[in-house]
């Protein structure tokens, strides 16, 4: 369904822009508690870089880089990270997602533990959002069929 773009401008631009977009998404993710941004925005930009690659290089090339199975594993790991930190705080005697309790198992102060906890949560959210976005895009652009059976 998605054919390869034979346009050299867009392919060259994507080759430059996609790594920049991913690095910038990591910056937005890691800097999320000091500046605008955070897990959701970083995840959206990571997903947008994969969508840009599908637009420029076609679906098959992108599926070689990030298969649907790897994508599923990514967002499951993101969800596990989020709920795992939450349940860990619950197990340490606090409320769900009460990051201050993480100071009991990490060698840091309570304030630092809160900062680290929100970073873990945001990483989980970013992985989840990116995985779901890319998965939805793959499914929409193949019509739900596996790419081999589509007969392009």
């Amino acid at each position, binding site marked *: 369904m998605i054919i390869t773009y034979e346009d050299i401008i867009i392919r060259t631009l994507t080759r430059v822009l996609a790594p920049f977009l991913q690095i*910038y998404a990591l910056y937005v993710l890691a800097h999320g508690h000091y*500046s605008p*941004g955070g897990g959701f925005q970083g995840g959206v930009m990571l997903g*947008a870089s994969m*969508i840009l690659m599908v*637009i420029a290089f076609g679906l098959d090339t992108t599926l070689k880089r990030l298969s649907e199975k790897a994508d599923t594993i990514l967002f499951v790991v993101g969800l596990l990270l989020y709920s795992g930190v939450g349940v860990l705080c619950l197990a340490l005697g606090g409320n769900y997602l009460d990051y201050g309790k993480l100071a009991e198992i990490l060698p840091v102060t309570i304030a630092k533990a809160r900062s680290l906890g929100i970073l873990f949560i945001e990483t989980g959210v970013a992985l989840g959002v990116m995985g779901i976005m890319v998965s939805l895009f793959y499914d929409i652009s193949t019509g739900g069929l596996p790419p081999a059976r589509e007969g392009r």
Partner: protein
Amino acid sequence: MALSLLVLLCLYRAVFGPFITNRIVGVSAIGTKTLIILLLMGFIYDRVDMFVDISIAYALLNFITTLAAAKYFEIKGEV
């Protein structure tokens, strides 16, 4: 102020544009002007470092949106 007027002109082209290409270019131009207005807002509030982050993200997503729309209409064969 002047930028807002220019946004309205581009909005006219995006809404009443005779062809689909006019609309795509109009929306893209509106996105670019929004970016500049964002940066000016950053100067007004004296926090440019925050607003530059938002503008870069906005510019990249605007570019991807335009590209995706152009490709979609190319596949549909309406251009």
